[in-house]
C-alpha cells in the first residue's frame, strides 16, 4: 500500500489552495470577495492560487456582471472535490500511522544518571 505522504498532491497540498478547496467543500460556490476575506488573502495572492487550481481542473471560475457590478464566482469541480477528499484522507492516515507507531514503539530505556 502506498504511504499516505506519497498520495499528497502538490497542487492541492499548498496551504492557500487547500483553504480554497475547504471553503468550496462546504459551499456550492463562493465569490472572490468571500474567499479573500475568509482566507485573509490579498487579491493578487488569491488570483494566483485560483489560476493554479483552474489550470489543474479543480475549480471553475465564472466572471459576470450582476447589475453593474462585476462578480467572480468560484466553484469546485467534481475532480476538485475528489482531490480535496483524497488529500484529507491521506493526512488523516498519516496522523493515524504516526499514532499507531507511537503506541507500538518499545519504551525508551531511561537515561542513566
Amino acid at each position, binding site marked *: 500500500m502506498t504511504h499516505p505522504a506519497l498520495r499528497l498532491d502538490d497542487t492541492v497540498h499548498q*496551504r492557500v489552495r487547500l483553504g480554497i478547496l*475547504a471553503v468550496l467543500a*462546504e459551499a456550492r460556490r463562493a*465569490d472572490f470577495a*468571500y474567499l479573500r476575506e*475568509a482566507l485573509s488573502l490579498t487579491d493578487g495572492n488569491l488570483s494566483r492560487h485560483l489560476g493554479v487550481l483552474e489550470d489543474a481542473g479543480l475549480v471553475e471560475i465564472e466572471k459576470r456582471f450582476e447589475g453593474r457590478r462585476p462578480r467572480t464566482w468560484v466553484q469546485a469541480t467534481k475532480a476538485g472535490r475528489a482531490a480535496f477528499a483524497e488529500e484529507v484522507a491521506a493526512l488523516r492516515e*498519516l496522523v493515524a500511522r504516526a499514532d499507531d507507531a507511537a503506541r507500538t514503539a518499545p519504551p525508551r530505556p531511561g537515561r542513566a544518571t
Partner: protein
Amino acid sequence: MRAGTANEILSDIDAVRGRTRRALHPIWFANLVTGVFFVGATIVSAVASGPTAPIVYLAVGIPVGLGLIVAHAVRVERELGAEARALDPSLGVVAAIFGGIAVVNALTSGDLRRVAWMYPVAIGWTIMAWLYRHPPLAVIAVALAVVAAALAIAAPADAGLWGQLALGVLLVAAGLYGRWRARS
C-alpha cells in the same frame, strides 16, 4: 511530512470548514423561528376547545416558518457572497428526527408516549451541535432530555404540552443567544 504538521493542517481545514458552515447556516434564526412556532402551538393547543384551531395553526405556521427560514438563508447568502449546497447534512438530521419520533411513537404508549418524542429531538440537536460546532444546541439537547425525564416521572396531565413548551422556550433562548453571539 511530520504527523504534527499533518494534524495542524487538518485542524486548519476543520476550522475553515466550520466557519464557512456556520456563516452559510445562521442556525440561530431557524432556532428562533421554530421556537416561536412551538410556543405558539402550545398556546393554541392549550386555549383551543376543538381540533380546528391547532390544525389551522399548523397548516399556516409550518409553511410560514419554513418560508421565513428560507428567505433569511437566501438573504444571508447574497450578503456573504457564498451559496450553500442544496443537499445539506442538516436536512438529513431533521428527516432522522421525524423518523425517530415516528418510531418512538410506534414503540410507546400512554404517559410515556407523550414525552418519548423529546428524546429523538434531543439526539438530533446533539448531532446538529456537532455538525455546526454550535454548543448552545447541545445545551438544548441535554436540557430537553432532562425535561423529558422529569415529565416522565411526574407524569402531569398535559405532559406533551409541557414538553412542547419547554422545546419552544429552549429554542427561543438558543436563537436569541446565537443572534447575540453572531452580532457581537
